[in-house]
């Protein structure tokens, strides 16, 4: 065999190998595609199982207003199918959908288990554990009362939190900046701050003319404490070199506080805002459960009084949506305000 023959032989070998590799790759891609399709169809399959169980296993509990839940399930399936079709054309939506498939499937599984243990097999005691269809019916039938309750709760929360913020920010700033303020406010903060605001309910009810005013005071108190503490510690920990630079640039005290101390402390202040919102939620609901005659907390209390647990769960669901929505909103605001931190710290 001559040298040239040898090289040409080698070449063809190489080509064959390459070809095999290519075809292998191709089949792997095909497998992947098949996997992807299976994954995307999993929620549809689970939905089908749910629907079969829903229709063909006899109810062992009495259910009224089941049609709302049927419509919900059909709507959800429809929405999923629409997304599926869109994702065939737009790869961004496809990857998003693939990412969400396990979560959607888990929710369907939970619904299935919930349906089976309540309506179909009657394993969980009534009235404490109503079936999903009943909870959704409560949501669909009583939505007006729920909506009004939401507005009342938001009003209390909004006013209370705003007062806590408007008092907490200056308190924290002054404590961080002036030793004199710190001397007098620090003991107050340390002594009174850790008491849960809800413990003040008896006092607040006695001091304030209405339960509304009392609740606002309690929510303001609850959010004031963490906002003040985090603002104070944020300002007290600002790099002193920033002040020196600002002073050599001609900055006076007002500039140093508002343009150096506060912006530098904002990451810490936002931690306080998040914590304050959490304590405000707790105080709001406890206040409404105990005294206020409106709002989601009141609604839960009232529904429990009538043993209408479907309404209790419906109100809890609404509460989850509202509260997580507010937290998300605060996250968005933080992302806007602290845009300079992007890439500097892990979010």
């Amino acid at each position, binding site marked *: 065999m001559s040298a040239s023959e040898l090289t040409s032989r080698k070449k063809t070998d190489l080509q064959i190998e390459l070809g095999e590799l290519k075809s292998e790759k191709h089949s792997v891609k095909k497998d992947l595609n098949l996997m992807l399709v299976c994954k995307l169809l999993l929620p549809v399959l689970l939905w089908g199982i749910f629907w079969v169980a829903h229709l063909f296993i006899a109810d062992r509990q009495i259910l009224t207003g089941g049609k709302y839940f049927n419509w919900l399930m059909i709507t959800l399936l429809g929405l999923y199918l629409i997304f599926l079709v869109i994702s065939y054309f737009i790869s961004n939506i496809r990857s998003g959908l693939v990412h969400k498939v396990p979560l959607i499937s888990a929710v369907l599984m939970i619904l299935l288990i919930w349906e089976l243990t309540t309506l179909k097999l009657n394993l969980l005691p009534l009235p404490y554990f109503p079936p999903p269809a009943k909870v959704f019916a409560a949501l669909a039938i009583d939505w007006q009362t729920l909506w009004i309750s939401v507005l009342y709760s938001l009003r209390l929360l909004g006013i209370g939190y705003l007062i806590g913020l408007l008092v907490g920010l200056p308190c924290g700033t002054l404590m961080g900046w002036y030793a004199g303020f710190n001397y007098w406010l620090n003991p107050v903060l340390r002594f009174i701050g850790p008491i849960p605001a809800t413990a003040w309910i008896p006092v607040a009810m006695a001091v304030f003319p209405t339960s509304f005013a009392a609740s606002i005071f309690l929510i303001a108190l609850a959010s004031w404490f963490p906002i003040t503490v985090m603002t104070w510690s944020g300002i007290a920990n600002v790099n002193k070199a920033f002040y020196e*630079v600002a002073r050599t*640039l001609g900055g006076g005290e007002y500039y140093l506080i508002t343009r150096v101390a506060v912006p*530098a402390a904002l990451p810490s202040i936002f931690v306080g805002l998040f914590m304050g919102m959490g304590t405000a939620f707790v105080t709001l609901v406890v206040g409404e459960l105990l005294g206020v005659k409106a709002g989601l907390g009141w609604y839960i209390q009232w529904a429990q009084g009538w043993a209408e647990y479907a309404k209790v769960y419906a109100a809890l669901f609404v509460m989850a949506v509202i509260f997580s929505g507010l937290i998300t909103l605060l996250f968005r605001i933080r992302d806007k305000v602290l845009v300079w931190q992007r890439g500097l710290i892990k979010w």
Partner: protein
Amino acid sequence: MVTAENALPQAGAIVFEQVRKIFVDPEGREVEALSSVNLAIRPGEFVSLVGPSGCGKSTLLRLVAGLETASEGLIRLDDEVIAGPHYLRGLVFQDPTLFPWLTVRRNIAAGLAARGVAKQQWDEVDEYIELVGLSGFGDSFPHQLSGGMAQRAALARALVNHPKVLLLDEPLGALDAFTRMQLQDEILRIWQDRGTTEIFVTHDIDEAIYLSDRIIVMTPRPGKIQEIIEVPIGRPRSRNHPDFFRLRSRILEVLNFAKELSLSYYL
């Protein structure tokens, strides 16, 4: 225009009269950081302070900046006694200390904002961005800049108020050799353009020779001026000029001599 300002005659004479600075350490003992410093810096002069750490060169700079007050004696800028910081005495640290929450443009404008200059009169800021070679980075945030770029921004921020005196506290100490030489040239160019009096603190003797009209060699414990050395090399300077080496060995000799002195003192 930035350069139009240079045509104006600009004073900036600094006089130290018997300046002494005493710190009290955490155990309550008094430490003499500077002992009877007498020095006159001419308007528009470029002066370097060199010496081992603890010789009080940074303290001297902070006294001029007004961030510290002298325990005894006084410092004058154009016959006015320095008391507290002023925007006519700009300062650049080794760490750029840019405000991380402001863009480069807003950082450079900080001097104007601090003095309460209305935003409508901030046109100059873009010229400063160009002056220090940061065109195109005005909207970047400090953490997106390299060390050298951040220091350029800090320089522009200190210059935006048209200071009579620019105080530089080891501004290039944290940079790599290349960036360092580049920025030395930039600092020189801007200084020659604007005629600002500059006091430059450094550990690097070559840097001091390359940049300064005069080099103040200081010795520690207590910090005092050991010797003032004129740099007779014409500008633009070559780093290979024979006088360069002569001066370097001279300065090293001064510093070594000081060491021997203190050694014999303790023996």
